[in-house]
């Protein structure tokens, strides 16, 4: 029997609709999604289940996405984090970069681009040179790494 390991992606998002949509699409794309509706749960699941990537919404109840990212950064946790935010100002982009996020997606994002970015982050697909199609986050955000 060959173990089939699907890349596990933690979705840290408080909006139930977005959680369901992302879960369905990530499953269809061959990922194994895990859910967290607040910052505490996100940190707990990252520590206990070591996901391959994290889709981190900035606006989370309890401790927000920035605080989650700060704690991961402080602990030196190597899990790649993709920031999902409704804001696209340069200060937030810089903050995400400084705290070690690998990509920054601006909401509302195209689901295909999100999947593409996630695939690149978990190393499912080789990230080729920037082409006409662009990198995963060109249209909706920024590649930070």
């Amino acid at each position, binding site marked *: 029997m060959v173990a089939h390991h699907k890349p596990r992606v933690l979705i840290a*998002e408080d909006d139930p609709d977005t959680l369901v949509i992302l879960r369905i699409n990530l499953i269809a794309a061959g990922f194994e999604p895990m*859910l*967290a*509706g*607040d910052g505490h749960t996100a940190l707990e699941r990252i520590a206990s289940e070591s996901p391959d990537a994290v889709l981190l919404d900035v606006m989370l109840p309890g401790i*927000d996405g920035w605080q989650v990212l700060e704690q991961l950064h402080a602990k030196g946790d190597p899990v790649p984090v993709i920031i999902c935010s409704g804001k696209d100002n340069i200060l937030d982009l810089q903050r995400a970069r400084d705290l070690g996020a690998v990509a920054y997606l601006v909401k509302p994002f195209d689901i295909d681009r999100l999947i593409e970015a996630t695939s690149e982050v978990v190393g499912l697909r080789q990230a080729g040179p920037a082409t006409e199609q662009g990198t995963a986050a060109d249209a909706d955000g920024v590649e930070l790494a």
Partner: protein
Amino acid sequence: MRNHRQSEPDRLRRDARIAGLRDFQTPSLEAVEQRRRQLWQRTATALALIAAVVVAFAIIPSNRLADAGTGRVLFAIVGVGGGLFLWAFHKETALERLTRSLTDERVLTAALTNRLHEVSLLLDAGKQMNAHLQMDELLDTILRSACELLDATGGSVMLVEGTDLVTVCALGRDAAVGQRMRLGEGVAGYVAIRRDPVLIDGHADPDLFPGLVLREPYVDSAMSVPLVHRAELQGVLNVNAPIGRSFTEYDLRALAVFAEQAALAIANARLYEAERAHVAALLDLRKRREAG
């Protein structure tokens, strides 16, 4: 080939069946944990028994058991032990999948509950605001509701007057009422011009907010959101966090949603005031005409 189209409930039921939770009707993490403890207790007991038998075989002099085929018996016992461990491991894998699925379901339920709570609070606040048409009462209700919604200790409502923002209602710093600032000055002025909510954590950056005046008492964390109705800026709503607490982006979003309703209520109150003034002017005109 595994059926990838299997629905979530079906997958849960299958994992529950594999894990030995045959009466699995109501999903619960507690039931899974209980089953896990039970599984490993039984497995540990069985493995301990097998180990005891193996040790017993080792202790008894080999010449007394030689004819009984000790080697074969020991091999069979160790095989049973290995099989038992694999069986437990298989169940544990199913239990792990169940735990993850149930945690996900719990997260979804909690997210839905939180959203319902948030909508309910905003609905209540909207009802309270729409119950007032007198501007003073309305502004007071807006500020108190915002502070209640976000556990804030104080704040202010500033309305646009020409090219200025005027503080018309304040909580926690009454002296602020009547103060004016130009649009574009300070945090509130920045918010008014950009029409973008701002979350301040720690000292505000004077480079980002020209004309910023640091006021006493110092506030650790604050939020400012624009009050915009039908693309028209009505003013700015500011709230301050209590000492030791920081607002988050989540709070900012809640305040921004609240501000949409507040802006509508202010626009209605202004319309009502204008209508009343109009009616008063007409009545005055009629009185003069009758008198003249």
